């Protein structure tokens, strides 16, 4: 891992960075209107239509092309539901519409992870404490070693295996994330504290399982197993896709992590700085952005998690120009490049750092005075 020294920004520069990004946000907010409403309703229409088509085609699942088409439609439906619709609606991106069907408090998505739990661990914890070691539980999700700052131990030899399991079972992993299992094991948290989280997991998990693995298969009668396999495949496709997009958002090489000490008393500009340096984009075309829920614009998403995702591609050039102006990196690359970078990191971090020579970077400075890629 190469050591890149990041530019030092003065207090005045941080302040003007914060101001520029606040102004950009305000311009988008002032421009929100009917086009944004129409967009999300169009996406929903496509998603629900694909879902109905997919479920319908599986009634003819004895005919292999129908099964393949059905599973494809259902997979795409679940991906759209989870990413461009669910993730974004539950971020409050469409709360300004005051439409109960698209309200962050009311919406739930087509996965076993209950909306309420996810909003806590994702919208609050992850988006507030992005990439702060020890605070952002999305660094490794309590399972993986994704940063040199996580001290190596032999458990991490299984890093690639855990990552593959998490990829295949992603929705179940997200479901269990808010249980904070590692804190239960370490005794930091009591079992009784997880009561609400457990109840929601049970209720949501049961409904989702019943729908995909009992009711719809049963409706197709003698095709029970074929339909069950179809639904399981669609869930698997969505899991692998969601995992891949999400891991490309924060774990490719070049993405920075921060310490709690560094990020104390952050200014608005410093907060933006951490969001930009802690995220990575994936380049691609409009269809790719749609299918990734525009999380291919992870940098824009982390700067402005509450503005409608369709706006991210529009503002990306401006965000990039701001980065260039302040000499800050704008981490982006093609899907295969970012994904390769992520898997390389997963494998490399499975082994002790000493194996790769000296620890990866100089000691961390503070955000306020400019910093270097952090060391173990």
């Amino acid at each position, binding site marked *: 891992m190469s050591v890149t020294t990041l530019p030092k920004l003065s207090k005045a520069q941080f302040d003007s960075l914060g101001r520029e990004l*606040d102004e950009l946000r305000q311009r988008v907010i002032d421009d*929100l209107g009917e086009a944004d409403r129409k967009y999300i309703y169009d996406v929903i229409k496509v998603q629900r239509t694909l879902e109905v088509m997919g479920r319908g085609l599986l009634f003819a699942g004895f005919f292999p092309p129908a099964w393949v088409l059905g599973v494809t439609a259902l997979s795409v439906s679940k991906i759209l539901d989870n990413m461009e619709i669910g993730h974004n609606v539950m971020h*409050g991106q469409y*709360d300004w519409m005051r439409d109960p069907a698209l309200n962050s408090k009311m919406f739930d998505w087509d996965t076993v992870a209950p909306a309420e739990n996810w909003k806590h661990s994702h919208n*609050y914890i992850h988006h507030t404490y992005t990439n702060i070691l020890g605070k952002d539980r999305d660094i490794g999700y309590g399972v993986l070693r994704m940063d040199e700052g996580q001290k190596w131990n032999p458990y991490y030899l299984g890093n690639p295996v855990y990552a593959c399991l998490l990829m295949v079972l992603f929705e179940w992993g997200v479901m269990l994330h808010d249980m904070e299992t590692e804190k239960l094991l370490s005794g930091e948290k009591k079992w009784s504290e997880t009561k609400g989280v457990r109840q929601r997991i049970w209720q949501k998990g049961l409904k989702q399982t019943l729908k995909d693995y009992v009711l719809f298969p049963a409706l197709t009668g003698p095709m029970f197993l074929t339909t069950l396999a179809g639904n399981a495949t669609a869930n698997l496709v969505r899991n692998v896709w969601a995992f891949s997009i999400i891991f490309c958002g924060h774990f490719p090489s070049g993405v920075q992590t921060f310490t709690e000490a560094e990020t104390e008393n952050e200014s608005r500009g410093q907060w933006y700085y951490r969001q930009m340096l802690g995220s990575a984009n994936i380049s691609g075309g409009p269809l790719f952005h749609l299918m990734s829920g525009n999380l291919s614009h992870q940098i824009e998403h982390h700067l402005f998690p509450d503005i409608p995702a369709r706006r991210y591609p529009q503002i990306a050039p401006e965000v990039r120009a701001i980065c260039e102006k302040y000499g800050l990196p704008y981490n982006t690359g093609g899907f295969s490049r970012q994904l390769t970078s992520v898997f390389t990191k997963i494998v490399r971090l499975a082994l002790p750092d000493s194996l790769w020579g000296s620890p990866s970077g100089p000691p961390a400075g503070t955000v306020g005075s400019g910093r270097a890629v952090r060391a173990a």
Partner: protein
Amino acid sequence: MLTTGLRFLEALATPHGVDRYLELIHPMLTIRELRGEVTSVHRTTRDTVTLTIRPTRRWRGFTAGQYVRLSVDIDGVRRARCYSPATSQHRDGHFELTVKAHESGLVSRWLHANARPGLILGLSQAEGEFTLPAERPDKILLISGGSGITPVLSMLRTLSDEDYQGTVTFLHYAYTEADVPCLEQLRDLAADKLVLAYTDAAGGDLEGFFDETHLRKVAPWFAEAQTYLCGPPGLMKGVRDVFADLGVSDRLHTEDFAPAPITVDAADATGDVTFARSHRTAPNSGATLLEQAEAAGLKPEHGCRMGICFSCTRVKTEGCVRDVRNGALSTDPDEEIQLCVSVPVGDVAIDL
């Protein structure tokens, strides 16, 4: 049987619900959500529009004097307002709303300009306590002003449908004759009971604003009657004062429909903050609502404290708040706000 079927369908449609699929076929196909289709539109005065609305099957009807919450999407934002049906409660399957386009009325102006047959609206079930008693009084005085005519007109039409044999007088205030909605129909319905008062023109049965002489002239029997009143704040105050002076306030039933305008300076920390659910009120300290709630000893759910995570979103039931990030004001009642980035402007009530 029906509910078992519905529950099965909902299990299949989880987590989105059946309506989210049915509405893709047709917006009026919803099972749980209440909607209405505009079936006819009449513009009876220069600034009012009368809509006939056919609600979806779950509509439970209304009692004369009640209101419904109607919502439309304007520039991407769902805007809800309360309107009283003006029709008799005994007409099944549809009702009428007469909407006056106020100068600053976003929804009323939009409806006046855009309502057409086929328009689908969001609806609530009818609500409100401003209704006639089930056992009709012998003498009834109905007083309205401007667009406050709708709930009392509904009462009059309901009584007419019931072939009411008691004494009823309907006193309505308008600027001029041209401002009285559905005038022809009104005359057909209740010519002998109708008293029109014009505040800005001659030619009515009465002239000028409400006072005791108006009351004595149109309903000398007011002390034995039940009076139902709905109109603009000036008229409401005038009638309330006269009834209080005469010691018959207990016979006056009122419905306010225009919230008092907000005239407080957005930068001043004035007024009181009311946390309605926990029955606490404290003077506005100028801090964010999250901080003020915590200072009042409450522990509202919250997260980032910077407006990004939406954990602290709550419904502001009354008043105006300012977003500390950009100064944007939220003035509508029943609007969702984020406590951590909202500062009260004047009196504010939060559902917390």
